[in-house]
Protein backbone atom coordinates (compact mmCIF):
# COMPACT_ATOMS: atom_id res chain seq x y z
CA UNK A 1 0.00 0.00 0.00
CA UNK A 2 1.42 3.34 -1.06
CA UNK A 3 0.99 5.37 2.11
CA UNK A 4 2.44 8.52 0.60
CA UNK A 5 -0.35 8.73 -1.97
CA UNK A 6 -3.03 7.89 0.61
CA UNK A 7 -1.88 10.11 3.46
CA UNK A 8 -1.41 13.69 2.27
CA UNK A 9 -1.84 15.93 5.30
CA UNK A 10 0.12 18.64 3.48
CA UNK A 11 -2.90 18.95 1.20
CA UNK A 12 -5.41 18.32 3.95
CA UNK A 13 -6.39 14.90 2.58
CA UNK A 14 -6.15 11.46 4.16
CA UNK A 15 -7.56 8.29 2.65
CA UNK A 16 -10.28 6.57 4.63
CA UNK A 17 -8.51 3.28 4.03
CA UNK A 18 -6.03 3.99 6.81
CA UNK A 19 -8.98 3.70 9.21
CA UNK A 20 -10.23 0.35 7.88
CA UNK A 21 -7.45 -1.62 6.24
CA UNK A 22 -6.18 -4.75 8.03
CA UNK A 23 -2.72 -4.39 6.49
CA UNK A 24 -2.42 -0.84 7.76
CA UNK A 25 -3.61 -1.98 11.19
CA UNK A 26 -1.01 -4.76 11.40
CA UNK A 27 1.68 -2.31 10.32
CA UNK A 28 0.57 0.14 13.02
CA UNK A 29 1.02 -2.54 15.68
CA UNK A 30 4.59 -3.01 14.46
CA UNK A 31 5.67 0.47 13.43
CA UNK A 32 3.72 2.63 15.90
CA UNK A 33 2.85 0.58 18.96
CA UNK A 34 6.02 -1.55 19.13
CA UNK A 35 8.22 1.54 18.70
CA UNK A 36 6.68 4.62 20.33
CA UNK A 37 6.70 5.53 23.99
CA UNK A 38 3.28 4.45 25.25
CA UNK A 39 1.49 5.47 28.44
CA UNK A 40 0.98 2.61 30.89
CA UNK A 41 -0.47 4.22 33.99
CA UNK A 42 0.29 6.49 36.90
CA UNK A 43 2.65 5.76 39.80
CA UNK A 44 -0.21 6.38 42.27
CA UNK A 45 -1.87 3.19 40.96
CA UNK A 46 0.95 1.10 42.48
CA UNK A 47 2.06 2.91 45.67
CA UNK A 48 3.14 -0.21 47.61
CA UNK A 49 5.69 -2.93 47.05
CA UNK A 50 4.04 -5.80 45.18
CA UNK A 51 1.26 -3.69 43.70
CA UNK A 52 0.48 -4.35 40.06
CA UNK A 53 -1.97 -3.51 37.30
CA UNK A 54 -2.51 -4.76 33.76
CA UNK A 55 -3.01 -2.67 30.66
CA UNK A 56 -2.20 -2.76 26.95
CA UNK A 57 0.63 -1.59 24.77
CA UNK A 58 -1.03 -1.62 21.40
CA UNK A 59 -2.92 -4.91 21.34
CA UNK A 60 -0.44 -6.60 23.71
CA UNK A 61 -1.49 -7.32 27.29
CA UNK A 62 1.09 -5.83 29.65
CA UNK A 63 1.74 -6.32 33.36
CA UNK A 64 3.10 -3.36 35.34
CA UNK A 65 4.60 -4.11 38.75
CA UNK A 66 6.34 -2.39 41.64
CA UNK A 67 9.04 -4.62 43.11
CA UNK A 68 11.73 -3.42 45.48
CA UNK A 69 10.82 0.19 44.78
CA UNK A 70 11.24 -0.24 41.01
CA UNK A 71 8.43 0.02 38.48
CA UNK A 72 8.72 -2.55 35.69
CA UNK A 73 6.58 -3.62 32.76
CA UNK A 74 6.37 -6.99 31.05
CA UNK A 75 4.48 -8.73 28.32
CA UNK A 76 1.69 -10.58 30.12
CA UNK A 77 2.57 -13.80 28.39
CA UNK A 78 4.16 -16.94 29.79
CA UNK A 79 7.47 -17.61 28.03
CA UNK A 80 6.51 -21.30 27.72
CA UNK A 81 3.14 -21.33 25.86
CA UNK A 82 1.97 -17.73 26.07
CA UNK A 83 -0.80 -18.05 28.64
CA UNK A 84 -1.50 -14.79 30.49
CA UNK A 85 0.31 -15.06 33.81
CA UNK A 86 -1.89 -12.35 35.33
CA UNK A 87 -5.64 -12.27 34.72
CA UNK A 88 -6.81 -9.49 37.01
CA UNK A 89 -6.83 -5.73 36.40
CA UNK A 90 -4.98 -4.81 39.58
CA UNK A 91 -3.83 -6.24 42.89
CA UNK A 92 -0.80 -7.09 44.98
CA UNK A 93 1.40 -10.13 44.42
CA UNK A 94 5.04 -11.10 44.87
CA UNK A 95 4.87 -13.59 42.03
CA UNK A 96 2.66 -14.85 39.23
CA UNK A 97 2.07 -18.50 38.49
CA UNK A 98 0.98 -19.38 34.99
CA UNK A 99 -2.25 -21.40 35.28
CA UNK A 100 -1.39 -23.53 32.20
CA UNK A 101 1.76 -25.48 33.18
CA UNK A 102 2.74 -23.77 36.41
CA UNK A 103 5.76 -21.68 35.47
CA UNK A 104 6.25 -19.15 38.22
CA UNK A 105 7.54 -15.61 37.70
CA UNK A 106 8.68 -13.14 40.37
CA UNK A 107 7.16 -9.66 40.12
CA UNK A 108 10.55 -8.44 38.90
CA UNK A 109 10.10 -10.72 35.87
CA UNK A 110 12.54 -13.51 36.79
CA UNK A 111 11.49 -17.10 36.11
CA UNK A 112 11.35 -18.50 39.65
CA UNK A 113 10.19 -22.02 39.20
CA UNK A 114 9.46 -24.59 36.51
CA UNK A 115 7.57 -27.77 37.39
CA UNK A 116 9.68 -30.79 36.43
CA UNK A 117 12.85 -28.77 35.93
CA UNK A 118 14.94 -31.72 37.14
CA UNK A 119 12.82 -34.71 36.10
CA UNK A 120 11.54 -33.48 32.71
CA UNK A 121 14.01 -30.82 31.61
CA UNK A 122 17.02 -32.64 33.11
CA UNK A 123 18.12 -29.28 34.56
CA UNK A 124 19.06 -28.24 31.01
CA UNK A 125 16.63 -25.32 30.75
CA UNK A 126 18.41 -22.02 31.30
CA UNK A 127 15.77 -20.33 33.46
CA UNK A 128 17.70 -17.05 33.41
CA UNK A 129 16.78 -16.72 29.72
CA UNK A 130 13.04 -17.26 30.12
CA UNK A 131 11.93 -14.50 32.43
CA UNK A 132 8.94 -12.41 31.37
CA UNK A 133 9.66 -10.29 28.30
CA UNK A 134 10.48 -6.84 29.64
CA UNK A 135 9.89 -3.56 27.85
CA UNK A 136 13.08 -2.10 26.35
CA UNK A 137 12.82 1.09 28.34
CA UNK A 138 10.56 2.57 31.01
CA UNK A 139 10.51 6.10 32.34
CA UNK A 140 8.15 8.52 34.06
CA UNK A 141 7.11 12.10 33.46
CA UNK A 142 5.36 13.81 36.36
CA UNK A 143 4.34 10.39 37.68
CA UNK A 144 3.03 9.24 34.29
CA UNK A 145 4.61 5.88 33.45
CA UNK A 146 5.66 5.39 29.83
CA UNK A 147 7.42 2.45 28.18
CA UNK A 148 8.68 1.43 24.76
CA UNK A 149 9.60 -1.87 23.10
CA UNK A 150 12.24 -0.13 20.97
CA UNK A 151 15.77 -0.33 22.45
CA UNK A 152 16.82 2.45 20.06
CA UNK A 153 13.98 4.79 21.00
CA UNK A 154 15.01 8.33 22.01
CA UNK A 155 14.78 9.29 25.68
CA UNK A 156 11.19 9.90 26.87
CA UNK A 157 11.85 13.61 27.30
CA UNK A 158 13.11 13.84 23.71
CA UNK A 159 10.10 11.86 22.51
CA UNK A 160 7.74 14.29 24.25
CA UNK A 161 9.86 17.09 22.82
CA UNK A 162 7.99 20.38 22.58
CA UNK A 163 5.00 18.86 24.37
CA UNK A 164 6.92 18.49 27.65
CA UNK A 165 6.66 22.10 28.95
CA UNK A 166 2.90 22.05 28.33
CA UNK A 167 2.27 18.52 29.67
CA UNK A 168 4.18 19.55 32.78
CA UNK A 169 1.34 22.00 33.51
CA UNK A 170 -1.02 19.00 33.55
CA UNK A 171 1.08 16.96 35.98
CA UNK A 172 2.92 19.44 38.19
CA UNK A 173 1.09 22.67 38.80
CA UNK A 174 0.72 22.12 42.53
CA UNK A 175 3.07 20.81 45.20
CA UNK A 176 3.07 17.00 45.12
CA UNK A 177 1.87 16.66 41.54
CA UNK A 178 -1.21 14.64 40.63
CA UNK A 179 -2.83 11.44 41.86
CA UNK A 180 -5.25 9.17 40.07
CA UNK A 181 -8.69 8.61 41.54
CA UNK A 182 -9.15 4.84 41.90
CA UNK A 183 -10.90 2.87 39.17
CA UNK A 184 -10.73 2.91 35.38
CA UNK A 185 -13.71 3.27 33.07
CA UNK A 186 -13.33 0.74 30.26
CA UNK A 187 -15.54 0.33 27.24
CA UNK A 188 -15.50 -0.79 23.63
CA UNK A 189 -16.05 1.68 20.83
CA UNK A 190 -16.61 0.14 17.38
CA UNK A 191 -14.24 2.48 15.54
CA UNK A 192 -10.62 2.88 14.54
CA UNK A 193 -8.43 4.00 17.45
CA UNK A 194 -7.20 7.06 15.55
CA UNK A 195 -10.71 8.58 15.43
CA UNK A 196 -10.55 9.00 19.20
CA UNK A 197 -6.89 10.05 19.37
CA UNK A 198 -7.32 12.74 16.68
CA UNK A 199 -10.60 13.98 18.14
CA UNK A 200 -9.00 14.61 21.54
CA UNK A 201 -5.91 15.97 19.80
CA UNK A 202 -7.48 18.85 17.96
CA UNK A 203 -11.17 18.56 17.15
CA UNK A 204 -12.55 21.71 18.75
CA UNK A 205 -14.75 22.06 15.69
CA UNK A 206 -17.20 19.29 16.64
CA UNK A 207 -18.15 20.64 20.05
CA UNK A 208 -20.82 23.09 18.94
CA UNK A 209 -22.67 20.47 16.88
CA UNK A 210 -21.92 17.08 18.43
CA UNK A 211 -22.38 18.38 21.96
CA UNK A 212 -25.22 20.79 21.26
CA UNK A 213 -27.43 18.98 23.79
CA UNK A 214 -25.26 19.93 26.79
CA UNK A 215 -25.28 23.54 25.61
CA UNK A 216 -29.04 23.29 25.07
CA UNK A 217 -29.63 22.42 28.73
CA UNK A 218 -27.16 25.07 29.97
CA UNK A 219 -24.63 22.60 31.35
CA UNK A 220 -22.01 24.19 29.15
CA UNK A 221 -21.69 27.71 27.80
CA UNK A 222 -22.02 28.11 24.04
CA UNK A 223 -18.54 27.37 22.66
CA UNK A 224 -16.63 30.55 21.91
CA UNK A 225 -14.40 30.83 18.89
CA UNK A 226 -11.65 32.55 20.80
CA UNK A 227 -8.86 30.13 21.57
CA UNK A 228 -5.86 28.36 20.16
CA UNK A 229 -4.48 25.11 18.92
CA UNK A 230 -0.86 24.21 19.51
CA UNK A 231 1.27 21.73 17.57
CA UNK A 232 4.54 21.40 19.48
CA UNK A 233 6.00 18.78 17.10
CA UNK A 234 6.42 14.95 17.01
CA UNK A 235 2.69 14.53 16.35
CA UNK A 236 1.54 15.79 19.75
CA UNK A 237 -0.86 18.68 20.26
CA UNK A 238 -3.64 20.33 22.23
CA UNK A 239 -6.12 23.15 22.06
CA UNK A 240 -8.37 25.21 24.26
CA UNK A 241 -10.91 27.95 24.40
CA UNK A 242 -9.47 31.17 25.78
CA UNK A 243 -9.50 30.94 29.57
CA UNK A 244 -10.17 27.20 29.68
CA UNK A 245 -12.71 24.73 28.37
CA UNK A 246 -16.00 23.87 29.93
CA UNK A 247 -17.21 26.68 32.09
CA UNK A 248 -20.82 26.03 32.83
CA UNK A 249 -23.61 28.48 33.18
CA UNK A 250 -23.67 27.50 36.83
CA UNK A 251 -20.29 28.20 38.45
CA UNK A 252 -18.62 25.60 40.59
CA UNK A 253 -15.93 25.72 43.25
CA UNK A 254 -13.29 24.06 41.07
CA UNK A 255 -13.68 26.68 38.34
CA UNK A 256 -12.96 29.46 40.83
CA UNK A 257 -10.06 27.46 42.19
CA UNK A 258 -8.45 27.12 38.73
CA UNK A 259 -8.74 30.86 38.15
CA UNK A 260 -7.03 31.64 41.46
CA UNK A 261 -4.37 28.98 40.86
CA UNK A 262 -3.45 30.38 37.45
CA UNK A 263 -2.82 33.78 38.97
CA UNK A 264 -0.98 32.60 42.05
CA UNK A 265 1.65 30.15 40.83
CA UNK A 266 5.21 30.86 39.76
CA UNK A 267 6.20 32.63 36.57
CA UNK A 268 6.35 29.55 34.32
CA UNK A 269 5.32 30.95 30.91
CA UNK A 270 3.17 27.86 30.24
CA UNK A 271 0.90 28.73 33.20
CA UNK A 272 -1.31 30.74 30.91
CA UNK A 273 -2.30 27.43 29.28
CA UNK A 274 -3.80 26.06 32.53
CA UNK A 275 -6.10 24.20 32.14
CA UNK A 276 -4.60 22.70 28.99
CA UNK A 277 -7.85 21.87 27.21
CA UNK A 278 -7.93 18.70 25.13
CA UNK A 279 -4.97 17.05 23.49
CA UNK A 280 -3.11 13.89 22.58
CA UNK A 281 0.41 12.66 23.18
CA UNK A 282 1.27 10.63 20.09
CA UNK A 283 0.02 8.03 19.46
CA UNK A 284 -2.86 7.17 21.81
CA UNK A 285 -2.66 9.00 25.15
CA UNK A 286 -5.25 11.74 25.26
CA UNK A 287 -6.13 14.20 27.96
CA UNK A 288 -8.84 16.62 28.88
CA UNK A 289 -8.08 19.35 31.37
CA UNK A 290 -10.99 21.74 31.84
CA UNK A 291 -12.48 24.21 34.27
CA UNK A 292 -14.40 21.29 35.79
CA UNK A 293 -12.17 18.19 35.81
CA UNK A 294 -9.04 16.49 34.47
CA UNK A 295 -8.74 13.10 32.76
CA UNK A 296 -6.40 10.85 30.83
CA UNK A 297 -7.62 8.60 28.06
CA UNK A 298 -6.11 5.62 26.33
CA UNK A 299 -7.35 4.37 22.98
CA UNK A 300 -6.16 0.78 22.73
CA UNK A 301 -6.38 -0.74 19.24
CA UNK A 302 -8.32 -4.00 19.10
CA UNK A 303 -8.55 -4.39 15.33
CA UNK A 304 -9.03 -1.79 12.58
CA UNK A 305 -12.60 -1.11 13.66
CA UNK A 306 -12.59 -1.63 17.44
CA UNK A 307 -11.04 0.42 20.24
CA UNK A 308 -10.94 -0.29 23.94
CA UNK A 309 -11.20 3.07 25.69
CA UNK A 310 -9.80 3.54 29.18
CA UNK A 311 -10.60 6.74 31.09
CA UNK A 312 -8.92 7.82 34.32
CA UNK A 313 -9.67 10.84 36.53
CA UNK A 314 -6.86 12.93 38.03
CA UNK A 315 -6.62 15.53 40.77
CA UNK A 316 -3.80 17.54 42.26
CA UNK A 317 -2.54 15.71 45.32
CA UNK A 318 -2.79 18.95 47.33
CA UNK A 319 -6.42 19.50 46.36
CA UNK A 320 -8.89 19.73 49.26
CA UNK A 321 -11.23 16.75 49.76
CA UNK A 322 -14.22 18.92 48.74
CA UNK A 323 -12.67 19.99 45.44
CA UNK A 324 -11.44 16.48 44.77
CA UNK A 325 -14.99 15.21 45.17
CA UNK A 326 -16.29 17.99 42.90
CA UNK A 327 -13.78 17.02 40.19
CA UNK A 328 -14.70 13.33 40.48
CA UNK A 329 -18.41 14.04 40.14
CA UNK A 330 -17.95 16.58 37.33
CA UNK A 331 -15.91 14.04 35.39
CA UNK A 332 -18.43 11.20 35.80
CA UNK A 333 -21.28 13.47 34.74
CA UNK A 334 -19.41 14.76 31.68
CA UNK A 335 -17.09 12.13 30.18
CA UNK A 336 -16.59 8.40 29.92
CA UNK A 337 -19.17 6.05 28.34
CA UNK A 338 -22.06 7.57 30.28
CA UNK A 339 -20.84 11.19 30.34
CA UNK A 340 -23.27 13.77 28.98
CA UNK A 341 -20.64 14.92 26.47
CA UNK A 342 -19.02 11.69 25.53
CA UNK A 343 -22.16 9.67 24.80
CA UNK A 344 -22.42 11.78 21.64
CA UNK A 345 -18.79 11.20 20.61
CA UNK A 346 -19.38 7.45 20.72
CA UNK A 347 -22.43 7.95 18.52
CA UNK A 348 -20.35 9.77 15.87
CA UNK A 349 -17.30 7.50 15.89
CA UNK A 350 -19.32 4.29 15.73
CA UNK A 351 -21.51 5.53 12.91
CA UNK A 352 -18.59 6.89 10.86
CA UNK A 353 -16.81 3.55 11.07
CA UNK A 354 -20.00 1.66 10.21
CA UNK A 355 -20.29 3.75 7.07
CA UNK A 356 -16.76 2.78 6.05
CA UNK A 357 -17.83 -0.85 5.44
CA UNK A 358 -18.74 0.23 1.93
CA UNK A 359 -16.23 -0.02 -0.91
CA UNK A 360 -16.98 3.34 -2.52
CA UNK A 361 -16.95 5.12 0.84
CA UNK A 362 -13.43 3.86 1.38
CA UNK A 363 -12.21 5.27 -1.92
CA UNK A 364 -12.75 8.77 -0.57
CA UNK A 365 -10.54 10.97 1.58
CA UNK A 366 -11.27 12.63 4.88
CA UNK A 367 -10.78 16.38 4.75
CA UNK A 368 -8.22 18.02 7.06
CA UNK A 369 -7.85 21.36 5.29
CA UNK A 370 -8.98 23.64 8.12
CA UNK A 371 -6.43 26.35 8.85
CA UNK A 372 -3.96 25.05 6.26
CA UNK A 373 -0.87 27.29 6.17
CA UNK A 374 -2.38 29.69 8.71
CA UNK A 375 -0.24 28.85 11.74
CA UNK A 376 2.68 30.73 13.24
CA UNK A 377 5.21 30.08 16.01
CA UNK A 378 3.89 30.03 19.57
CA UNK A 379 6.69 32.44 20.49
CA UNK A 380 5.39 34.93 17.96
CA UNK A 381 1.68 34.48 18.67
CA UNK A 382 1.91 34.63 22.46
CA UNK A 383 5.23 36.41 22.99
CA UNK A 384 6.32 33.52 25.20
CA UNK A 385 9.49 31.47 25.14
CA UNK A 386 7.70 28.21 24.31
CA UNK A 387 8.04 25.67 21.49
CA UNK A 388 5.61 24.78 18.73
CA UNK A 389 3.30 26.39 16.23
CA UNK A 390 -0.06 27.91 17.06
CA UNK A 391 -3.23 28.01 15.03
CA UNK A 392 -6.81 29.16 15.43
CA UNK A 393 -8.99 27.32 17.97
CA UNK A 394 -10.94 25.71 15.13
CA UNK A 395 -8.12 24.19 13.11
CA UNK A 396 -6.78 20.86 11.89
CA UNK A 397 -3.18 21.94 12.29
CA UNK A 398 -2.25 19.42 14.99
CA UNK A 399 -4.09 16.61 13.19
CA UNK A 400 -2.06 17.26 10.03
CA UNK A 401 1.12 17.13 12.15
CA UNK A 402 -0.11 13.91 13.72
CA UNK A 403 -0.52 12.18 10.35
CA UNK A 404 2.83 13.47 9.07
CA UNK A 405 4.40 11.80 12.11
CA UNK A 406 2.24 8.69 11.61
CA UNK A 407 3.30 8.37 7.95
CA UNK A 408 6.95 8.91 8.82
CA UNK A 409 6.85 6.03 11.34
CA UNK A 410 4.78 3.77 9.09
CA UNK A 411 7.23 4.21 6.21
CA UNK A 412 10.32 3.67 8.34
Amino acid at each position, binding site marked *: MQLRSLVRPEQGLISRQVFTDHGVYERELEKIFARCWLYLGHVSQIPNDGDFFTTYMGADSVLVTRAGGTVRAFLNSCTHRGMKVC*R*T*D*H*GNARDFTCPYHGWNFANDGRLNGVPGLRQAYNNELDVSKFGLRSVANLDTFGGLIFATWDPDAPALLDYLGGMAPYLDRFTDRMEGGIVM*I*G*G*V*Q*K*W*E*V*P*CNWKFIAENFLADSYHVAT*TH*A*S*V*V*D*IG*FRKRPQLRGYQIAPGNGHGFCSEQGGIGEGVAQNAYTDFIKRLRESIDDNPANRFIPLGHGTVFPNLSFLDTMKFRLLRLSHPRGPALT*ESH*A*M*CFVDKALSPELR*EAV*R*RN*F*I*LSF*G*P*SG*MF*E*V*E*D*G*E*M*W*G*EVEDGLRGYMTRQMDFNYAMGLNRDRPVAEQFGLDLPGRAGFYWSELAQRDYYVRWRELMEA
Partner: protein
Amino acid sequence: MDQTSRHATMAAIQAFQAHEILLLQSRRYVDWLKLFTSDLHYWMPVASVNETGEAAAPDELAHFDDTLETLTMRVRRAMSRFAWTEHPPSRIRYFVMPLWFDQQADNVEVDSNLMVYQTRLQREENLFVGTRKDVLRRVDKDFRIAARKVTLDRSVVAAKNITVFF
Protein backbone atom coordinates in the same frame (compact mmCIF):
# COMPACT_ATOMS: atom_id res chain seq x y z
CA MET B 1 -42.76 -10.33 59.38
CA ASP B 2 -44.96 -13.33 58.69
CA GLN B 3 -45.05 -15.15 55.39
CA THR B 4 -48.32 -13.55 54.23
CA SER B 5 -47.09 -10.02 54.70
CA ARG B 6 -43.76 -10.92 53.04
CA HIS B 7 -45.72 -12.09 50.01
CA ALA B 8 -47.74 -8.88 50.06
CA THR B 9 -44.59 -6.75 50.22
CA MET B 10 -42.97 -8.71 47.41
CA ALA B 11 -46.09 -8.24 45.29
CA ALA B 12 -45.99 -4.49 46.01
CA ILE B 13 -42.30 -4.36 45.02
CA GLN B 14 -43.01 -6.20 41.78
CA ALA B 15 -45.91 -3.90 40.95
CA PHE B 16 -43.71 -0.88 41.61
CA GLN B 17 -40.92 -2.27 39.42
CA ALA B 18 -43.37 -3.06 36.60
CA HIS B 19 -44.68 0.50 36.75
CA GLU B 20 -41.12 1.85 36.55
CA ILE B 21 -40.32 -0.41 33.58
CA LEU B 22 -43.35 0.88 31.68
CA LEU B 23 -42.19 4.46 32.22
CA LEU B 24 -38.62 3.69 31.14
CA GLN B 25 -39.60 1.66 28.08
CA SER B 26 -41.83 4.43 26.83
CA ARG B 27 -39.07 6.96 27.66
CA ARG B 28 -41.39 8.91 29.96
CA TYR B 29 -38.34 10.11 31.88
CA VAL B 30 -39.93 13.16 33.49
CA ASP B 31 -42.54 10.89 35.11
CA TRP B 32 -39.79 8.42 35.95
CA LEU B 33 -37.91 11.09 37.92
CA LYS B 34 -40.96 11.44 40.17
CA LEU B 35 -40.26 7.94 41.52
CA PHE B 36 -37.15 9.19 43.35
CA THR B 37 -36.80 10.96 46.70
CA SER B 38 -35.11 14.35 46.81
CA ASP B 39 -32.13 12.88 48.71
CA LEU B 40 -31.51 10.26 46.01
CA HIS B 41 -28.13 8.63 45.48
CA TYR B 42 -28.01 6.97 42.05
CA TRP B 43 -24.76 5.09 41.61
CA MET B 44 -23.05 2.71 39.20
CA PRO B 45 -19.45 2.13 40.33
CA VAL B 46 -17.03 0.82 37.70
CA ALA B 47 -16.44 -2.91 37.87
CA SER B 48 -12.96 -4.38 37.59
CA VAL B 49 -11.44 -7.83 37.48
CA ASN B 50 -9.87 -8.38 40.89
CA GLU B 51 -9.58 -11.16 43.45
CA THR B 52 -12.36 -9.82 45.69
CA GLY B 53 -14.90 -9.24 42.92
CA GLU B 54 -15.68 -5.85 44.43
CA ALA B 55 -16.61 -2.87 42.29
CA ALA B 56 -14.99 0.55 42.84
CA ALA B 57 -15.38 2.24 46.25
CA PRO B 58 -17.65 5.28 46.82
CA ASP B 59 -14.76 7.76 46.45
CA GLU B 60 -13.53 6.09 43.26
CA LEU B 61 -14.66 6.16 39.66
CA ALA B 62 -18.20 5.33 38.57
CA HIS B 63 -20.33 5.41 35.45
CA PHE B 64 -23.08 7.21 37.37
CA ASP B 65 -22.81 8.95 40.71
CA ASP B 66 -25.83 11.21 40.71
CA THR B 67 -28.06 13.20 42.96
CA LEU B 68 -31.63 13.85 41.88
CA GLU B 69 -30.38 17.19 40.53
CA THR B 70 -27.72 15.68 38.25
CA LEU B 71 -29.95 12.76 37.22
CA THR B 72 -32.52 15.36 36.19
CA MET B 73 -29.81 17.05 34.13
CA ARG B 74 -29.06 13.77 32.37
CA VAL B 75 -32.76 13.34 31.61
CA ARG B 76 -33.04 16.88 30.27
CA ARG B 77 -30.04 16.24 28.03
CA ALA B 78 -31.43 12.95 26.75
CA MET B 79 -34.67 14.74 25.85
CA SER B 80 -32.96 17.66 24.10
CA ARG B 81 -33.70 17.87 20.41
CA PHE B 82 -29.93 17.93 19.90
CA ALA B 83 -29.34 14.60 21.69
CA TRP B 84 -28.24 12.62 18.63
CA THR B 85 -27.97 9.49 20.77
CA GLU B 86 -31.77 9.40 21.01
CA HIS B 87 -32.67 10.76 17.58
CA PRO B 88 -34.12 8.53 16.32
CA PRO B 89 -35.05 6.94 19.66
CA SER B 90 -33.72 3.61 20.92
CA ARG B 91 -35.97 0.66 21.52
CA ILE B 92 -35.31 -0.51 25.08
CA ARG B 93 -36.53 -3.56 26.99
CA TYR B 94 -36.10 -4.00 30.75
CA PHE B 95 -36.03 -7.28 32.61
CA VAL B 96 -35.95 -6.79 36.37
CA MET B 97 -36.15 -9.75 38.70
CA PRO B 98 -36.46 -9.02 42.43
CA LEU B 99 -34.68 -11.74 44.39
CA TRP B 100 -34.75 -10.66 48.01
CA PHE B 101 -35.86 -7.80 50.18
CA ASP B 102 -34.96 -6.66 53.65
CA GLN B 103 -37.64 -4.77 55.55
CA GLN B 104 -36.27 -1.98 57.74
CA ALA B 105 -38.03 0.74 59.74
CA ASP B 106 -39.05 3.06 56.90
CA ASN B 107 -37.20 1.43 54.04
CA VAL B 108 -37.26 -1.76 52.05
CA GLU B 109 -33.93 -2.81 50.57
CA VAL B 110 -34.42 -4.81 47.39
CA ASP B 111 -31.85 -6.89 45.52
CA SER B 112 -32.71 -7.55 41.89
CA ASN B 113 -31.14 -9.00 38.78
CA LEU B 114 -31.23 -6.60 35.89
CA MET B 115 -31.02 -6.99 32.14
CA VAL B 116 -31.48 -4.09 29.75
CA TYR B 117 -31.60 -4.68 26.01
CA GLN B 118 -31.20 -1.62 23.79
CA THR B 119 -31.33 -1.56 20.03
CA ARG B 120 -30.65 1.52 17.99
CA LEU B 121 -30.85 2.46 14.36
CA GLN B 122 -30.78 -0.53 11.98
CA ARG B 123 -28.87 -3.17 13.92
CA GLU B 124 -26.97 -1.77 16.89
CA GLU B 125 -27.50 -3.87 20.00
CA ASN B 126 -26.37 -3.30 23.56
CA LEU B 127 -26.96 -5.62 26.46
CA PHE B 128 -26.41 -4.38 30.00
CA VAL B 129 -26.58 -7.12 32.62
CA GLY B 130 -25.96 -6.78 36.32
CA THR B 131 -27.40 -6.44 39.78
CA ARG B 132 -29.38 -3.63 41.29
CA LYS B 133 -29.80 -2.75 44.94
CA ASP B 134 -32.60 -0.29 45.65
CA VAL B 135 -33.57 1.40 48.87
CA LEU B 136 -37.32 1.96 48.60
CA ARG B 137 -38.94 4.35 51.01
CA ARG B 138 -42.63 4.26 51.82
CA VAL B 139 -44.19 7.63 51.00
CA ASP B 140 -48.00 7.97 51.16
CA LYS B 141 -48.50 4.19 50.98
CA ASP B 142 -46.41 4.04 47.81
CA PHE B 143 -42.70 3.48 47.22
CA ARG B 144 -40.10 6.08 46.33
CA ILE B 145 -36.52 5.19 45.39
CA ALA B 146 -34.08 6.74 47.87
CA ALA B 147 -30.92 4.96 46.68
CA ARG B 148 -30.00 2.80 43.73
CA LYS B 149 -26.73 0.96 43.14
CA VAL B 150 -26.28 -0.82 39.83
CA THR B 151 -23.27 -3.02 39.18
CA LEU B 152 -22.72 -4.23 35.65
CA ASP B 153 -21.18 -7.68 35.36
CA ARG B 154 -18.93 -6.95 32.36
CA SER B 155 -15.91 -4.93 33.45
CA VAL B 156 -15.25 -3.63 29.93
CA VAL B 157 -18.62 -2.16 28.96
CA ALA B 158 -19.58 -3.60 25.57
CA ALA B 159 -21.16 -0.45 24.18
CA LYS B 160 -19.97 2.73 22.50
CA ASN B 161 -21.98 4.69 25.06
CA ILE B 162 -24.41 4.22 27.92
CA THR B 163 -27.53 6.20 27.06
CA VAL B 164 -30.13 4.10 28.85
CA PHE B 165 -31.16 4.60 32.46
CA PHE B 166 -31.10 1.78 34.97
